[in-house]
């Protein structure tokens, strides 16, 4: 994999609009056939990054390569990529079939082949009976699929998708997530997928780039991003996390002892180099914590919420810090194990507590 040419490569790409830096020194390598997501909060530069790959925006600095080819000022209609727009952007004056045929006609594909490929594409998104409708006569989910068919019919090397499920309701969204993922492994085309929904990114992607304020904070598999966030921002943006702040007391190889709020000592795994006395954040996911009748680290049960599959405890650790603990309700009596106001011990595996510097 490391040998082959990446499908898309961004090298120190920066985009400025006036004095707004929309994308700031982004470097990415996206492999052939990968489902790659750009994830981040609103305004972090996801769309701008995608538009630079499509050719709608030109980088202020840096290089975009598609299959090793430097794109430079290549206009969108000469790039081997296709886009599914958030608003779908179906041509309202053309029928569904004409919409899907548009790209093939522009590429001067023979008529007979166009007809056949359009039929196949409509079959693929399971809407062959809609060929003669106008986009106005379709539902949101159907429009979404036609937009997908219109892009995929061209067999692009890379498909760019900008929050393609953003306009759908939750149930349809979930169904389409699975459908999209299945379609991607079926056609084997590289997908670059923009979303601000972390759950969506985790379920669908092979790899995720987490962005914030124009920068890529971390690139990794969903598991890496979730289990090994490299910064406070990533840990906070993906899933639920407890944060404790403290000073490094001692460094022991891969681990460090951190004195939280000057009172409680916790052991955590390092994510980067730290020195003694440095101010750091310790991040622990609620489901990685275990409650015991007693232990080295102790706290008091402040709140206890039963939520069906889980019970959620809020534990007062120090005057300034609280920890949320999630325990699965395996047996019937589980939720009554600890009571409000009770003192409990807290346990976790050392690699579950991460010492974050940034």
């Amino acid at each position: 994999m490391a040998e082959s040419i990446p499908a898309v490569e961004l090298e120190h790409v920066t985009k400025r609009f006036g004095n707004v830096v929309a994308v700031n020194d982004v470097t990415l390598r996206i492999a052939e056939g990968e489902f790659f997501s750009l994830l981040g909060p609103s305004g972090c530069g996801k769309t701008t990054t995608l538009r630079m790959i499509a050719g709608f925006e030109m980088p202020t600095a840096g290089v975009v390569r598609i299959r090793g080819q430097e794109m430079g000022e290549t206009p969108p209609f000469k790039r081997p990529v296709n886009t599914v727009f958030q608003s779908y952007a179906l041509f309202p004056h053309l029928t569904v079939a004409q919409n899907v045929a548009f790209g093939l006609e522009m590429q001067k594909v023979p008529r007979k082949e166009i007809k056949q490929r359009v039929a196949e594409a409509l079959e693929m998104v399971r809407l062959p009976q809609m060929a003669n409708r106008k986009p106005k006569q379709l539902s949101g989910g159907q429009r979404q699929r036609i937009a997908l068919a219109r892009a995929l019919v061209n067999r692009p090397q890379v498909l760019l998708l900008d929050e393609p499920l953003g306009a759908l309701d939750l149930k349809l969204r979930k169904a389409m997530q699975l459908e999209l993922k299945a379609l991607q492994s079926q056609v084997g085309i590289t997908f670059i997928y923009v979303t601000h929904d972390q759950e969506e990114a985790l379920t669908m992607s092979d790899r995720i780039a987490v962005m914030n304020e124009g920068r890529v904070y971390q690139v990794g598999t969903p598991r890496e991003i979730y289990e090994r966030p490299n910064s406070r921002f990533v840990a906070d943006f993906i899933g639920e996390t407890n944060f404790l702040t403290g000073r490094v007391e001692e460094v022991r190889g891969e681990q460090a002892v951190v004195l939280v709020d000057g009172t409680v000592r916790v052991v955590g795994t390092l994510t980067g180099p730290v020195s003694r006395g440095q101010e750091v954040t310790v991040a622990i996911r609620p489901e990685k914590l275990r409650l015991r009748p007693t232990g080295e680290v102790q706290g008091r049960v402040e709140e206890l919420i039963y939520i069906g599959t889980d019970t959620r405890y809020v534990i007062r650790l120090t005057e300034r810090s609280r920890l949320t603990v999630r325990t699965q309700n395996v047996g019937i009596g589980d939720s009554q194990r600890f009571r409000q106001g009770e003192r409990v011990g807290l346990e976790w595996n050392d690699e579950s507590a991460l010492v974050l510097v940034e």
Partner: protein
Amino acid sequence: MKTGSSRQRTLIRIGQKVLSLHALFSYLFLYLPIIILIIFSFNNSKSVFRWAGFTTHWYLDLFSDPRIMSALKNSLIVASASTIASTIFGTMVSIAMERYDFFGKLPFDALLYLPIVIPDITMAVMLLVFFVTIHMPLGLHTIIISHIAFNISFVSVTVRARLASLDPALEEAAQDLYANEWQTFWKVTFPLLLPGIIGGALMAFTLSLDDYVITFFTAGARSTTLPLRIYSMVKTGVKPDINALSSLMMMVSMALVVLSLLLQRKGGEGVTIQ
């Protein structure tokens, strides 16, 4: 308290009555003369003031009057030529203004609307002075040039309204699907703009057909248009044939305006409200 609120209610009720009366009178004021004009164009008498039975011979007379027919021909030539030219230029200007940035765009933008806001008489004098300065003899061609000058503004206002409400992602989608700028324009932008362009063209045709002031200043000796003809007929006394001619012109103009409005409203397709 009680009397106060009931007095208020009475006041509101009176206010509503007054307002609806006001609206009624406004419409009467606008349309009564037109209705009278149309009625008397069918009056079987030379007098414009006394009803003497129904006839259509004033209308038939119009078509046998060679001076009116030649004025009609001139009017149609001027309106058609100026409509075609101003529609093409107006559309191109709109696209330039909406889609591209260039040096001096803002002042140019302001200048574009000048013909709409300045008085006709000012524009007429300006154009006349211009033609005299460049030693261009007056005739149909000078009328056409003048009409193009003011019609470009009206066409570009209508086309730009449509263009501004067009989702820019549609043009990007076309480019993403391998259409170059030229193909994108003809396959996507133009079909979606068409209702606006036709609307603008109909508006231009109407304005050209009805214009008096600017035409009067820029017309040559043998380039009389219908409005000029009507005015010279009125000077020798109002006869029912003028009523007939005016009624016809009004009907045609109204039909064109209604068609233009319908077209601009129709086909909200591709138009997003943001």
